[in-house]
């Protein structure tokens, strides 16, 4: 077996770091309907339709019942667990007027203020 490509032989392999969701292929497959729904929220017209009937809008994108529940309940952790990519989930958070620091508080079990204070103090350490 030869080395087929410069830049190839080193650096690959799976990733597993505690406390760190990895958005891999299986996760992306699980979340694709929900993520497509989040991406659609870039237009004002879609945001209006979503707001008028959140459950119906979710259903039209084919979300699973669990995913729909997570969205309707604004269960941000569940959205990530059910295949949401943070960049896509954040579209919904923005709609709700929530910041990435608010989400950070949710994910770390602290308040937005505490999370922000930790960032201002130089960030959290692994």
């Amino acid at each position, binding site marked *: 077996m030869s080395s087929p*490509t*410069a*830049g*190839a*032989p*080193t*650096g*690959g*392999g*799976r*990733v*597993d*770091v*505690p*406390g*760190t*969701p*990895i*958005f*891999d*292929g299986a996760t*992306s497959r699980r979340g*694709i309907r929900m*993520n*497509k729904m*989040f*991406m659609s*929220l*870039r*237009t004002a017209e879609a*945001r209006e339709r979503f707001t008028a009937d959140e459950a119906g809008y979710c259903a039209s994108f084919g979300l699973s019942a669990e995913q729909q529940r997570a969205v309707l309940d604004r269960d941000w952790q569940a959205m*990530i667990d059910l295949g949401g*990519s*943070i*960049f*896509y989930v*954040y*579209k919904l958070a*923005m*709609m709700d007027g929530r910041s*990435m*620091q608010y*989400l*950070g508080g949710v*994910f*770390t*079990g602290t308040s937005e203020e505490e*999370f922000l204070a*930790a*960032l*201002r103090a*130089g*960030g*959290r*350490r*692994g």
Partner: protein
Amino acid sequence: MAEVIWGLATSHVPSIGAAMDRGKTEDASWKDLFDGYAPARAWLAEHRPDVAIVIYNDHANGIDLDVVPTFAIGTSDHYDVADEGFGKRPVPDVVGHPELSLHLLESLVDEGFDLTVFQELDVDHGLTVPLSVWTPDPGEAWPCPVVPILVNVIQYPQPTAARCYALGQALGRAIASFPQDLKVGVLGTGGMSHQLAGARAGFINPEFDAMFMEAVETDPERLTALSRQDYVREAGSEGIEMIMWLVMRGAMRAEVTKVHSHYFVPASNTAAAVALFDNRAPATA
């Protein structure tokens, strides 16, 4: 032949663009970051290229998850600024350079890089924030046409750091073989350490960032030996996007001269940095 005259590494955090768009650059929480940009901006204003190549990733704005390219290049003459959900940024659309794009594509495919071609593409903060870091007041137009090169850093498996550096080296050769005399600026974007989700959200690693900043200038090969696992562990699940700096660095000479760098925590959840490198051999004394 075309020549890379400089390389600019910079974070592309959306809030940096938002702070500029909303006139908040003098606010206490932002002033140090923007003051840190000033020397780079001054030098760049004196060294305007004919075309810029921006290495970046999209964030659910120009590309959906049904198609995830490892490496892609835009070949259009025009890229609309994406509406990311809160209206388009009040900055100019991006003019492309299709001739250079197609030359780079042909050279890179011939060297065995399996690029995806985007003939149409809306560009998001990943590309426009770096342009704003470079040129805060573009007026009607950015300083020069742009060739976008996209890297998948969002969905595992990302390309390895070594592959990104190899792409950059091939990009450097492709630029050098362009028949026209063009001065080229290369922007490597993203980073530095940060993580948005999970129990480790808010993670920042200034020691790793300092090592990376030093090594990207003086010993980039060292950074190509790090695995995906190393990047995610040391830089956070989103900090892995620093591999895009290696594409820029690969396109430059082995020896570059640092013009300026600055490091700032936090821009949103991110350790933000700028690093500007002169790619021309130092003038003989």
